[in-house]
């Protein structure tokens, strides 16, 4: 019983770490970046290459995945994304979908279409017993990392100078610029951080979900469900939404396997009917 709860939390945290970067770009920058999964894939594949081909420790892979995806994000932001900030959401969607297909073809060409499996160091696999429940060590690790990230991000956005500059830039770019805030730089940085988080999510998720070129499309639906249920304007929203979805999904599949696969969608539909703005949304002024 506790084991199921734990597995649900771990699954939810995995969803959170994959979706949190999207939450940063979509919610804070108001940019519909469906290609988010492509950055996660970049981080995941970097981990695969570093660990399986070069034999580098898993601990180096995590920051490397973050930096690699962040750099990729920064470059693409400078060259491509920037042009679409003031375009309609439809243009942004079309653009980022196109980017997904390009990334899939590129990875397919470079790495092949087969599944890439990450083999974790032995001290991260296996199980320990906590309060009488058997829990996987790696899942425990994922939960810890996500918890730290959630708190850290919330702190940065709500309490730091950078956070308030960012919020100001998003709410009204012109006025923010007038106040001497370097909006362009802030957006670049934020976009890079969002992409980096995706890469970190990909690296952490690689061993559980395994990597193939279809990753961005396969998991896009899950990112979007998390954002739809949690709302994209805070970090805490998607955090609790991920928890809710993860526990409901795992629990549902365990107790009523016949309909278990639908529970995650049922929750999303229910939320969209009763609270179309998401469960935990900060009221926007626009």
């Amino acid at each position: 019983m506790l084991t199921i709860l734990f597995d649900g939390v771990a699954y939810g945290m995995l969803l959170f770490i994959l979706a949190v970067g999207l939450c940063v770009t979509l919610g804070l920058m108001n940019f519909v970046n469906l290609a988010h999964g492509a950055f996660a894939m970049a981080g995941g594949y970097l981990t695969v290459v570093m660990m399986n081909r070069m034999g580098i420790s898993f601990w180096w892979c995590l920051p490397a995945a973050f930096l690699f995806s962040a750099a990729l994000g920064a470059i693409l932001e400078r060259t491509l994304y920037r042009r679409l900030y003031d375009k309609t959401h439809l243009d942004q969607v079309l653009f980022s979908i196109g980017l997904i297909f390009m990334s899939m073809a590129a990875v397919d060409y470079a790495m092949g279409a087969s599944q890439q499996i990450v083999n974790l160091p032995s001290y991260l696999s296996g199980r320990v017993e906590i309060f009488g429940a058997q829990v996987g060590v790696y899942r425990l690790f994922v939960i810890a990392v996500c918890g730290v990230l959630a708190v850290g991000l919330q702190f940065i956005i709500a309490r730091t100078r950078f956070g308030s500059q960012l919020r100001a830039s998003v709410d009204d770019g012109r006025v923010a610029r007038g106040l001497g805030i370097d909006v362009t730089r802030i957006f670049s940085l934020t976009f890079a951080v969002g992409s980096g988080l995706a890469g970190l999510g990909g690296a952490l998720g690689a061993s559980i979900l395994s990597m193939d070129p279809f990753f961005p499309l396969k998991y896009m639906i899950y990112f979007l469900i998390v954002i739809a249920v949690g709302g994209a304007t805070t970090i805490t929203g998607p955090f609790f939404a991920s928890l809710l979805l993860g526990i409901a999904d795992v629990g549902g599949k365990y107790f009523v396997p016949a309909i278990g696969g639908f529970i995650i969608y049922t929750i999303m539909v229910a939320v969209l009917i009763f609270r179309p703005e998401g469960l935990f949304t900060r009221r926007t002024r626009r």
Partner: protein
Amino acid sequence: MLRRQLLLGAASLATGVVAGLAPSAPALAQQQTVKVGFIAAMTGPQASSGRQMLQGIRLYQALNGDTVAGKKIEVIVRDDTGVADQTRRIAQELIVNEKVAFISGFSLTPLALAVAPVITQSKTPAIIMTAGTSIITAQSPYFARVSFTLPQQTMPMAEWAAKNGVKTAVTLVTDYGPGLDSEKAFAEKFTELGGKVLAQLRAPLANPEFAPFLQRAADAKPDAIFLFVPGTQAGPLMRQVVDRGLTKSGVKIIGPGDITEDEQLVSMDDSVLGVLTSHFYSAAHGSDANKRFVAEFRKANNNQRPNFFAVGGWDGMHAIYEALRKTNGETDGDKIMGALRGLEWDSPRGRMSIDPQTRDVVQDVYIRRVERRDGELYNIEFDVVRQVKDPYRK
């Protein structure tokens, strides 16, 4: 509206042409080239199957020449991305425009089923190199299979388990055609031999998280857990099986060979050691024919290991060559099918044949255990059931 009518018109025209093609088929035999259409998923989630099949075909042609009975064999490769209506459209196009004498490939069951009416109408022999549901060969008299059927692969495992001290089992399969096939085959054979199936679990096809299902399986405390998922999910599933400590707790992990398929197995780690599977092909099969096949395949493909898709492509090509040899190069659909029925040969996998009645594959099924050999993980065969037919189509 106009567009839809145009499409409908084009579609009926296409089927009309296909139907009208049959009488002219003997005329094709005069040509000096025999075209073989190869339709498989070369991109998309199933791409690795299409690529391995094609590598098997190319290797066969490289080692055995591209002429047989005075005809040059030309393989036309088309990608259906794993979508059934594409497969059907491409098959029509190949038969009508390219005038192919054979269709081959088929990564998945629905893709093979989609072409059944087309090949029946045009009397074009179709060689199934991968798709593994029992019913396919019953859907058209022009199907012949050189791959496997899931019940054929599954029942020997059930038999072996029942005879080797496994009293209770839980099955966990993916909720789609082949998964249900193997669930049924396993449960039938296993209970027939006195075993008890404690639970039958089905995971949705789009399902990255196996935790709840594996937990349920573990809670039932069986002697063995029988697993079957599509090849692309095998890696993540085995990872979760191991993380859950199921392999260490003394529960036997068993299943058809798809879960430890050769190409994936290379990238797994020692935690899958000891997993038991039944299957028709392992790259570690000890025959000389297979050693040569593996060595040549590695040489031609950047040291990549061949898997059962590749051997399917190889044997499909062999069946086409042998059938043409028997008909002396004639490509009439009925004559080819006559030549394919009862065809028997030594494949890298071992002795195999095409059943004269069902046109389905008959072959040895091996019981294997994952072991480390020469620094790589392999499925090592240690027991065999000779010349197994699909149990459902007698």
